């Protein structure tokens, strides 16, 4: 029973992180119909920024500022950094390709992913770095449920993800920006003709999505401690799966999909085998695509014939 609860907790933790990354994928796909392969690497950059913030303030063992302040700074700086990175990528790499055949931005996205990953490799080396979270946040506090342990970092992840998701839903459903995003996602030309500043809407979409990825990066570093230049790819792929299973283009879908994939991964790690857990996750994707091609919350785009 304890294993079950612990697996559940682990699944929810990774699920939250996948959900945050998946939101970026899904929002960008919604407004640009672009599969932004570079998004996973933005997450990776976020993790690195968080790492360097820790080093800046003395490293995990000699922090010069209190831990809560450190965490806030990490989140804010990383979020802003990745947000700006996302906006820059959109501005310089994707904007020239707004009207190009669909395959062109895909290649550009792959190119951007290449550049990001290898720039980090070049600047900071390929070896694994560690947040050493346990040096400054004790992992024995937290709560116990039925023998399973949820430590403070994990609680923070739950809370933060919940808050961010709620905020995002408010933005999308209740603000003008959200309406603009939905309009651009529906029909970009028409939105432009109705006076919506499409360039700014798209830039803000990228910003929000990248901030979420950056925050996920920091929290991932805090929870799993080890980071390297290549963590972006696999995490990005799984978050991508989550976005698709949930219904790409749907914000609720990304959230639900993320949790779902996180849980699937945790349970197959626990109960089946580590070797096959990735394959199982991908298998779930294939099955979902066959049974419900547009994902759980996705809507089939109706074509006027």
């Amino acid at each position: 029973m304890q294993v079950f609860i612990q697996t559940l907790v682990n699944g929810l933790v990774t699920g939250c992180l996948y959900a945050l990354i998946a939101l970026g994928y899904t929002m960008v796909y919604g407004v640009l119909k672009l599969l932004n392969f570079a998004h996973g690497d933005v997450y990776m950059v976020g993790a690195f920024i968080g790492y360097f913030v820790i080093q800046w303030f003395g490293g995990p063992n000699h922090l010069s500022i209190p831990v809560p302040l450190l965490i806030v700074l990490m989140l804010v700086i990383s979020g802003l950094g990745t947000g700006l990175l996302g906006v820059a990528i959109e501005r310089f790499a994707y904007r020239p390709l707004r009207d190009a055949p669909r395959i062109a931005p895909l290649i550009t996205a792959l190119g951007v992913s290449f550049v990001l990953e290898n720039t980090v490799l070049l600047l900071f080396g390929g070896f694994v770095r560690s947040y050493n979270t346990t040096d400054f946040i004790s992992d024995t506090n937290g709560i116990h449920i039925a023998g399973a342990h949820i430590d403070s970092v994990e609680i923070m992840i739950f809370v933060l993800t919940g808050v961010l998701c709620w905020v995002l839903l408010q933005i999308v459903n209740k603000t003008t920006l959200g309406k603009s995003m939905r309009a651009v996602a529906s029909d970009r030309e028409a939105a432009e003709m109705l006076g919506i500043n499409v360039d700014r809407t798209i830039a803000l979409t990228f910003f929000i999505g990248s901030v979420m990825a950056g925050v996920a990066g920091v929290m991932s570093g805090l929870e799993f401690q080890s980071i390297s230049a290549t963590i972006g790819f696999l995490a990005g792929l799984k978050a991508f799966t989550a976005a698709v299973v949930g219904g790409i283009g749907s914000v609720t879908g990304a959230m639900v999909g993320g949790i779902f994939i996180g849980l699937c991964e945790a349970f197959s790690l626990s109960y089946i085998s580590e070797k096959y857990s990735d394959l199982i996750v991908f298998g779930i994707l294939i099955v979902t695509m066959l049974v419900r091609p547009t994902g759980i919350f996705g809507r089939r785009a109706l074509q006027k014939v």
Partner: protein
Amino acid sequence: MPQIGVDEWVAQSGERREQGTGLGRALATLDARFGWWPRLALAAAVGLVFGLSTGNVNLLTVGFTCLLYAILSLGLNIAAGWSGLLDLGYIAFVGFGAYGYAIFSSSALGTGGSGGAHLAAFESIPIVVIAAGLVGVVIGLIALRLEGDYLAIVTLFVGQAFFEVVNNVDPGTLGGVNGIFSIDSLHGLSGNVSTPRGYYLVALIIIVGLAAVLHLLDTSRTGRAWRALRDDPLAASAMTIPVNKLKVMAFSFSAAIGALGGTLFAAQTSSVFPTNFTENILILIFACLVLGGAGSIAGAIAGGIIVWALEQMLGSPTDAGYLFYGLILLTLFLKIRPWWKLGAVLAGIVVFGFLAHAIVGAISSSATAGHPGSTGWIGSAVKDWVIVPSDPIGYGNILFILVICLVLALVRLQGTARLVLVVPTVYLAACCWESRLIVNPAITTQIMLGVILIVTMAARPNGLLGSRRVEML
């Protein structure tokens, strides 16, 4: 009644404007003047002369790899270029072919490193290729349920799944992480291909044959149907075209050709590892295709050659230097007009550099004590021009970021400000190159490849040799 000569000329003004002047127009005229078959024959002749005349083993191996990538991108072209099916799992078919050949033509099926099937090439290759075609049919049938981007997503994961399978499943036969090695070279009847020249010629024959076959297919009803299906599947279906059957056919052909390339790869390198078939390679193949211009046979081949040649040049410091400086000079040539401005900028860069080097050198001798990374005559030429401190790593890193910011700023500026900013940007880029980038050629290669992809797509979204397309959104 339309007037002879006049109306046609007017009607074609749009096409003329698109071709532009200079190189674009010259290429297009050449295009129209020579038929397809003479051009193929010419390309084949060039390839043959190259293969027979050079004794340089390195060159021949590079040439083989170029042709191999060309073969792979031709295969991808059928699905992605002609039929508009975004098959991001193509690498799985290539791997299937490679592993298939590896299993049948080595000791993999035996025990303890001996025995095994050791089939001759003309036995194992057809088996593998046909099997791949069948797998392609299965994937195609699955893909029928999916549209556009969903297809891309699912196929991407199929590709990843392949990697997971050969990495984790059944290490006894498939070799697991260590792969399979000691694979037989191509052999059969009494012949044996084991030299670099031999493999190059085999690849050349295959690609010429493949190009011919695909051209014949492209100009037939099947080719027309594929292109119709790419432009508008609904309309194609309304015009008697069995869209689903053709999609499956496209996948099947694509898979078969990919597998063929895979077998060649396995035979030439004598070993296969799971890491040979990761997304990096897939990106390369797509780059080949899109760079050259998806949908055209010549484009696919050209893309394959360009991408691999780039990879190669970036591997050796001297050659990489040619590439780096050459690309910069080329960009400046193409972008700065009139000539006197170009001359001024070039002169400015040179003078700026020497001045900076002299000033910094006077201030601190350790700041210029390092050696430029380039070897050969480039290295000696720039020794007194670039600033390379005795500890170049951190300096190089900072410069790298600085150069990126400068380049992004350049994109936004116009006119004189832009020309002025070019001078320090190019100089600092050269310093960064010499002190940092060239030292890590593997990583630099990837970065440059990524940059080239981004820039090419921004400048010519239809690929270098592609023609203008109108997409239905």
